[in-house]
């Protein structure tokens, strides 16, 4: 999960394409919740087999960032906070209680549970110093955690850039073995959410130091666990070629030092095997339906298979849809003409046929058409405050676009007869479906109001890393971008993507290059609010402001499908875009 942009989720072939209608969604999410709630009565034992197309982004939990990796590492590691399958609210995991804020919300104190032990070969009990080391090593150049600065940069003494060696961060104190205290430079509205990231999962310094002192840490290949499972290893702790074969498999076995008394995870199965390399989603889907495997890990069933499953009453129940928590949108480059003009951008927002765009990804089954950025799964945590389903500043019948309105806006912008006249505009798009099809719809729609769009087609990762993430190379339009939050806080959706101060020369995720002083001020204010209701109201307002700026045009709140075999009891991580929670799944008849 985490900065689950579609950039990353789409790695290789894994495209989460699908979704469901609102009614179906509600029913299914409720069903998942109910299923998870009955976890206590499930059978123990057996093996769960998860199929995936690709490998994890990083095997080291201290580097892990994306959804599939969290799916695995949440079963082997215990961050301070984590999530039950049907919930978007973090609860204590390694922590014994929720964090306590004091000193004007600038001091955060967390107590950790006694009795949590590292897996072999370390075997000893976890202390707060292990959590401190885990966070600090994220700042070391050998680990180079991608989100350390974004979520722990406000801790007093946190390095501004990666350090040679693991730094001692003064703002992280461990007054005793069970307590860790964070001193923040300023109140941070999402610091609690940050404590659910894997960077807070303990790492034993005395064991990890020799691996972390290499140019690129190899601790991941020798990692120890605190969760119910561990990656199969040898006596020295090495997992490479044993429980981890890159691109082939990850084999989780029970952690002998895990105690059920210290955890709310039931961990029914004895083994969880992640089989990688299923590049063909149809083969993967049918393998799960046949019962030879139990669930899809990183890529969903293709639309045709989804439709087939949904039409078969004997299989329909195996499919679970979960809201992604994010949206896909068309980013218009506000830093240069013609999209530096508000009315021109708004004209584009009006003319786009969002229904046709959704059809390029499978239609209604893929999700609800988005009218702003916070998706309905945020409910009263920002979605309702932004106006909920009723907020659509660029309405059109059936979401098919409104050419007349678009032309009227262009006339106001100074284009006689409402048709754009000016240089060709550039667009960098995916070179394969469904992204390439979406881009075609955008180009065709924009032609209706006079735009001549030149499309450069590249791979999805090239689109991001060489063009849309690099402001100096950025085209006028990036039609295949989107953002999934690292956790369910509106700030995790709207800050890095639309705050002017988050524009960077490389790896930029503010794709419209939006730098509006009014919006920047609203974002700056919202980031410091710790009280939940006030914070969500502030972010709801930011959502409205960004949407009205038409710097980006949201077009789908996508849902992700997870397919379970009939042999397992399903459990999907609502907070992690529907990834299966293998610690809550159980095998029937085992």
């Amino acid at each position, binding site marked *: 999960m985490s900065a689950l942009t579609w950039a*990353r989720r789409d790695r290789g072939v894994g495209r989460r394409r699908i979704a469901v209608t609102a009614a179906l969604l509600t029913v299914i999410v409720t069903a998942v919740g109910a299923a998870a709630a009955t976890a206590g009565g499930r059978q123990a034992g057996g093996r769960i087999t998860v199929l995936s197309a690709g490998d994890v982004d990083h095997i080291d939990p201290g580097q892990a960032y994306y959804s599939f990796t969290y799916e695995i590492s949440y079963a082997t590691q215990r961050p301070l906070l984590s999530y039950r399958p049907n919930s978007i609210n973090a609860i204590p995991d390694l922590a014994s209680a929720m964090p306590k804020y004091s000193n004007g919300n600038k001091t955060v104190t967390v107590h950790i549970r006694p009795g949590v032990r590292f897996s072999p070969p370390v075997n000893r009990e976890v202390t707060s110093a292990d959590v401190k080391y885990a966070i600090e090593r994220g700042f070391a150049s050998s680990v180079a955690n991608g989100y350390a600065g974004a979520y722990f940069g406000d801790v007093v003494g946190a390095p501004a850039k990666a350090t040679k060696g693991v730094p001692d961060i003064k703002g992280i104190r461990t007054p005793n073995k069970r307590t860790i205290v964070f001193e923040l430079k300023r109140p941070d509205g999402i610091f609690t959410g940050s404590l659910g990231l894997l960077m807070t999962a303990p790492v034993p310094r005395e064991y990890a130091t020799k691996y972390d002192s290499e140019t690129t840490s190899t601790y*991941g290949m020798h990692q120890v666990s605190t969760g119910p499972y561990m990656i199969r290893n040898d006596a020295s702790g090495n997992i490479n070629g044993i429980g981890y074969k890159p691109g082939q498999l990850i084999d989780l076995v029970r952690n002998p030092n895990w105690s059920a008394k210290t955890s709310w995870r039931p961990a029914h199965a004895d083994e969880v095997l992640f089989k990688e390399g299923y590049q*063909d989603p149809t*083969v993967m889907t049918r393998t799960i339906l046949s019962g*030879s495997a139990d669930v899809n890990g990183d890529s969903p069933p293709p639309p045709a298979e989804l439709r087939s499953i949904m039409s078969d009453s004997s299989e329909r129940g195996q499919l679970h849809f979960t809201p992604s928590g994010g949206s896909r949108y068309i980013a218009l480059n506000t830093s240069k003409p013609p999209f530096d003009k508000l009315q021109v951008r708004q004209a584009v927002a009006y003319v786009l046929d969002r229904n046709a765009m959704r059809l390029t990804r499978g239609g209604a089954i893929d999700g609800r058409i988005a009218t702003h950025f916070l998706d309905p799964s945020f409910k009263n945590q920002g979605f309702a405050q932004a106006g909920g389903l009723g907020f659509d500043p660029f309405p059109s019948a059936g979401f098919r676009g409104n050419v007349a309105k678009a032309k009227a806006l262009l006339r106001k912008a100074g284009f006689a007869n409402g048709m754009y006249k000016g240089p060709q505009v550039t667009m960098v798009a995916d070179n394969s479906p469904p992204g390439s099809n979406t881009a075609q719809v955008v180009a065709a729609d924009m032609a209706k109001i006079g735009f001549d769009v030149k499309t450069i087609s590249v791979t999805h990762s090239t689109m991001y890393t*060489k063009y849309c993430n690099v402001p100096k190379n950025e085209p006028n339009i990036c039609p295949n971008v989107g953002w999934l939050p690292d956790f369910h806080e509106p700030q995790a959706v709207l800050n890095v993507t639309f705050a002017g101060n988050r524009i960077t020369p490389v790896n930029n*995720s503010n794709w419209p290059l939006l730098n509006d002083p009014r919006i920047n001020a609203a974002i700056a204010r919202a980031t410091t609010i710790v009280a939940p209701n006030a914070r969500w109201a502030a972010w709801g307002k930011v959502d409205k402001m960004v949407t009205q700026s038409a710097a980006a045009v949201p077009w789908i709140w996508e849902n992700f499908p997870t397919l379970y075999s009939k042999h397992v009891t399903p459990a999907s991580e609502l907070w992690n875009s529907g990834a299966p929670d293998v610690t809550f799944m159980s095998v029937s008849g085992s």
Partner: protein
Amino acid sequence: MGAIGSVLSSSMLLYIVRRILWGAFLLVVVSALTFLIFTVFPSADPAALRAGRQATPELIAQIRHNLGLDKPLYVQYWLFAKGIVLHFDLGYSYQNSVSVRSQIFTRLPVTLSLTAGAFVIWMIVAIPIGVISAIRRRSLLDRATMGAALVAISAPVYFLGLVALFLFSNDIGVIHLLPGAGSYTPLSESPWRWFTSLLMPWCVLAAAFAAFYARMVRGNLIDTMGEDYIRTARAKGLSERRVVGRHGLRAALTPVVTMAGLDIGILLGGAILTETVFNIPGIGRYAYDSIINSDLPAIEGTVLFGAFFIIAANIFVDILYAFLDPRVRY
């Protein structure tokens, strides 16, 4: 010893040395081209991919430094080439920091298994069909087999592979016959499961080759059977079986052997499509994954490895020819 000495004459040795040096030069060219294509043409930034979406430019710069990507291109290439020549070190994957050499060697037995089995099948199928078609030209059997061969050549491996899986695999197939995708088992673990898990990939991979080779054997044999020495053999009263088997086939198979050497070389470099469709963890799938992840060291490693096998097969075939026909040594 004397016979070998006469065969390995100085001109022959010189020829072999020349071919090997040329092969080494080609490997350098291949590696340089791969490096150039990856770095010059638009491809994803490996440092940014590794860093993740929230990373700062400074962090990406640090990762770029860790990976050695901040050095001038010629230095990067020189370090890479030096590593290979001095230590046979193909570098470390950008994605998971695992040694590329170890990954390739771990996967080599898998690709070797796939290639060897497919080769046996395609030769066993192709030679009899080619011979029978040549001997019974324009017969119903000839037309049927050559028609089938055309279909097999035209059917892409990924299509044929999927059809085979949906028909015959024991998990998703209509007829539950053989293990399906992702079922590969090493020979050392279970010979029987190794055999059954590879049977379908072998057949799929062999299909196009068998068809192509059958057509080649047929064509060669038809040409050979028109030669004067065949007529002489028949005039001497030899049986038709002996004429075809002893005189005709021997000559007709020479180019087939040459071609087989090259094809085996190519496949040892990785049968990408077959390994991907059947989820076989060989070098071909490693190459595929590397391309998807913009993992240059792994791409370089697999391309070089493939090139090595192709060039080695070429040299082997050339040397074989030099033994058979002294004219090519000069």
